[in-house]
């Protein structure tokens, strides 16, 4: 699969082919601009490949009709470096929002949200606003929001990029726990410490090409 952005001199991803099994935990690593974030965007159908196919849950995302995309995205959870929480809503409301906008009732939210906040270790902080939480706690809220709908796949785009090393490790433990529930985790990072500690599959990308694909790999 190839992705060339308009006006770019070379493809962001050049003839890349990766297959990820259900329940796997995969790191995509590589320097800035290597094209690793493009993988997340492709999986979310935020961008479409110039060439080739993106297949998720044995469905060809590239051929998917645009009105089916929202439904497709419900099977994917997403976490970002900048958390993307709504500043005027509490931790509880941020997570419940994700449920309510896909048509779940308030009753469902009341049952599920405290559970998932407990799971990410935010029990007792449900009613704090994002600015009253530390960076690590905010990312936990984001993870809770991504996971509350029990997605099959969790995409994480440099989730530890804004966090100190200790907090990063905690977030990784959380992602690991989520992975153990059977959720596939795809994480883009350039945090070598974390990759080395986790010892999971590592796919290294450089200038849009895969240069290494190693089970239980390390960074560099």
């Amino acid at each position, binding site marked *: 699969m190839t992705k060339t952005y308009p006006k770019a001199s070379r493809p962001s991803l050049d003839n890349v082919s990766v297959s990820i099994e259900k329940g796997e935990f995969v790191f995509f690593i590589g320097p800035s601009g290597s094209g690793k974030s493009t993988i997340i965007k492709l999986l*979310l159908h935020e961008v479409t490949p110039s060439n080739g196919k993106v297949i998720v849950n044995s469905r060809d995302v590239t051929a998917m009709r645009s009105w089916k995309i*929202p439904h497709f995205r*419900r099977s994917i959870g*997403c976490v970002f470096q900048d958390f*993307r929480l709504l500043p005027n809503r509490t931790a509880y409301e941020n997570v419940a929002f*994700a449920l309510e906008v896909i048509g779940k009732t308030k009753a469902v939210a009341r049952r599920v949200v405290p559970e998932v906040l407990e799971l990410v270790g935010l029990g007792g902080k449900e009613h704090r606003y994002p600015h009253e939480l530390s960076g690590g706690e905010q990312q936990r809220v984001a993870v809770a929001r991504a996971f509350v709908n029990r997605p099959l796949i969790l995409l994480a785009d440099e989730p530890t990029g804004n966090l100190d090393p200790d907090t990063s490790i905690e977030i990784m433990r959380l992602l690991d726990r989520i992975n153990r529930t059977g959720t596939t985790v795809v994480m883009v990072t350039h945090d070598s410490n974390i990759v080395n500690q986790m010892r999971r599959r590592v796919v290294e990308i450089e200038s849009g090409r895969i240069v290494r694909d190693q089970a239980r790999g390390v960074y560099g």
Partner: protein
Amino acid sequence: MRAKYVLSEVMVGLWRNVTMSIAMIITMAVSLTMLGASGLMYMQVNKMKDFYYDKIEVSIWLSTDATAEQRTSLESSLKADPLVASVIYENREQAYNKFKSMFQDAPDFISAVKPDQLPESFRVKLKDPEQYDAIFNKYKNTEGIDEIIDQRRLLEKIFNILGSVQQMALVAASVMAVAALLLVGNTIQVAAYSKRREVAVMKLVGASNWFIQAPFVLEAVAAGLMGAILGFGALVLAKVLLLDGPLRDLTELLTPLEWGDVLIMFPLMAGAGALVSALTAWVTLRFYLRV
């Protein structure tokens, strides 16, 4: 739950940018008032045509020095004419009585006129009112005739005036509609911008497109409906304060404007306002909320 969510989003949306919302509603109201007024005028003109075209006649005025002979020969030829449906003769005395009742508010004017100064006339009803020219050409050179007048011509002048007023109202309605459209577009852009974080999260977690767009579209529709209500209120006020007030005599001379017709304008205005706003909002969102 969802309906309540969407409704509260609409109210919050309109309130967030309240000056813009008011501007949008006012332009919408003015445009829809013009549209409603133009619709009413159109219906009125049609109604007047139905009402008067039934009654119109060709008046043949005899010159004051016409002889009785000329009169009877004209009468018999008119009665024999295949184009004519009926003929009524009006003598000087009848003309004078009619004149008196027409100008009863001006006794000085009446006393200045003697019955023998008024001409005799024939009121001719045609089988087909369009055939006026044939009648005119046939009798214009007949001895003793002073003037042949087709009432239809007079009416058509009035209808033409009403028609051009109606067209002016339509043009004004369209110009205001353009302003209203631009304001709707702008309001929706501002709303989409102020809710960009929510929209981003909604897209991310897979909210359906209609769920993301509905509050914005409904915000525009709500403004359109409020504009229609205001515009309808303006029409009602115009009828009560103007047509039933100072312009009463004019409206009675023409056919009076009925409440039923005014009421019919409301669904038209509300429909136009809501539909146009919804379409504008939807098109704007296609540019500003790419999914």
